[in-house]
């Protein structure tokens, strides 16, 4: 990937010092930059990242949550293409060239999907699978999309898509927010099969019911106009959702 558009990889990380070596080992050659967005880790995440990759860019997120981390990472990107990865080793960075190829074939935004033909997941629980399916179906119904996997963090897109995303949430609902907003903007979306592996070390911060509820709220709120969203929720509820 040395020639052609510059690829920036954004990896939000919170206490993933033990997983980063596995993630970095799978990164392809020729990347423009790798950005680790640290969520105030208490382990050696930052030191490990610097040791593994001296040219890594480290960004300390201002708040908390995956959405906040991604927003900080996007703001720091200087490449033409942005790829988002998870730091827990469940997503395979070696798939990045396939995502980039789909962008070169006319897509504005490429979504990884564990449930497209060729995709798989060794990590997802039954509850999360059915929740994902239900929320996925709801988004397809409300927004006219054909997504097969709503809540997966492995995506690639042209940096020009960033103004359409306007990430302004903090939690795990960020992927849903992005998926809905790019659909509303009419961007060309392709899905690419992806294989999710079991998290290597540590425990996920994801709570199926709490975060599923936040995803549902996001889906509903995005149906409203921006002014309606601002007026419907009282300030306290907005603070709660912002986590």
């Amino acid at each position, binding site marked *: 990937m040395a020639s052609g558009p510059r690829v920036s990889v954004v990896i939000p990380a919170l206490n993933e010092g033990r997983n980063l070596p596995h993630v970095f080992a799978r990164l392809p050659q020729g990347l423009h930059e790798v950005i680790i967005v640290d969520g105030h880790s208490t382990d050696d995440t930052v030191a490990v990242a610097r040791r593994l990759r001296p040219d890594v860019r480290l960004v300390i997120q201002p708040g908390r949550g995956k959405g906040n981390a991604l927003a900080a990472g996007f703001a720091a990107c200087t490449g033409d293409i942005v790829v988002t990865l998870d730091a827990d080793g469940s997503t395979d960075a070696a798939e990045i060239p396939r995502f980039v190829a789909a962008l070169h074939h006319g897509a504005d935004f490429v979504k990884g999907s564990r449930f497209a033909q060729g995709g798989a997941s060794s990590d997802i629980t039954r509850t999360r699978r059915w929740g994902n399916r239900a929320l996925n179906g709801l988004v397809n119904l409300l927004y006219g999309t054909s997504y097969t996997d709503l809540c997966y963090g492995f995506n690639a897109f042209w940096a020009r898509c960033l103004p359409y995303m306007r990430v302004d949430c903090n939690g795990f609902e960020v992927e849903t927010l992005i998926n809905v907003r790019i659909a509303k903007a*009419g961007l060309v979306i392709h899905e690419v099969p992806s294989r999710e592996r079991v998290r290597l070390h540590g425990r996920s911060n994801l709570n199926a019911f709490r975060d599923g509820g936040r995803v549902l709220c996001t889906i509903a709120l995005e149906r409203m106009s*921006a002014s309606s969203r601002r007026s419907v929720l009282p300030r306290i509820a907005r603070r709660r959702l912002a986590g």
Partner: protein
Amino acid sequence: MKVALVTSDGRASSSGVDPKVEALGHALACRGVEVEVLAQGPVREPPGPTGENGVVVRHFPIARGLWRHLRRTSRSVNVVHVHSAPPPLGLGVARAGLRRLVFTPRAPIERLLHWPYAHMTQAAVGRALRTVCTSRADADLVRCSFPWAAKRLRIVPTGVDVNAIRAATPLAYPGRVVLTIGPLERRKRIERAIAAMASLDPEFRLVVVGDGPARRRLRAYAADLEVSSRVEFVGWVSEPVLHRWLRTARVIVALAERANAGLPVLEALSAGAPVVASDIQVHHEAASYAAGGGLRFVSPEGSPLEVADAIEGAARIGVHATGAVDDIPSSEAVADGMLALYEALGQPGVALEG
């Protein structure tokens, strides 16, 4: 000769009549034709018939009143020409028992040939001595759907007041103006132009001329994308003001997924502005009047990024630097064509053919 032009309440104008029909009426009156314009729609002030430049305009709030008037006056009118956007109007006029009826479908013909309008369009085409389409694309579709009416088809493109557009003075407006013209309906795909603003430089400003049922949705969409400060909805404007906007625009966009005439493209060519148009046959027909560059086509279903790239590319061409435009149909030429058609219908022995 006395001609009745029947139309629905179209774009806002001083008389409440579609400006193109109004212009045709005035041009015919200048050629010595007695013209009566019958508009079905809300009654404008003052009530009762109005008229200027030899054209009498009557408004009918309900179609039945218009239908009764036609029945009552049919013997005194040589030709009735219905410009029908809502198909029921065309059907109603067709059933008024008129001797010489000319029918021009105003809405995109693809819509008129499908349920629930198909049988109304068929009835109107069946009763009309002539069906006048504004583009070859529309005529081909009518011919395919109603082959028995092929011999009665004529093509008269929509005219443009080229001289008035070229003489108009540009408005003083900040930034690079990207102009799009309504009505604000879903098929015009104006939301694509709004979405493109999000990835264009801040100096680009979108001006939307026109009004329609999608206005509220489009405003909310612009707010959602946080480009409201760079998108201005100016509503319907008079023809002279529209001409000034055409001369002000750095780029004119026409992104309709369906259209029955490439009027925005023709107006843009007349103004000498680069055009970004959806890749539909009607726009290609209109583009055939441009001898040089200045036109960029985008997919009717494509991404706003594609539209943004096309706008940027078109803006680099520069205003009034497009190629020579020959034979853009003028309003005067259209009036001459229509008058010749009406006079031919007035010949003895003309009957339904086919």
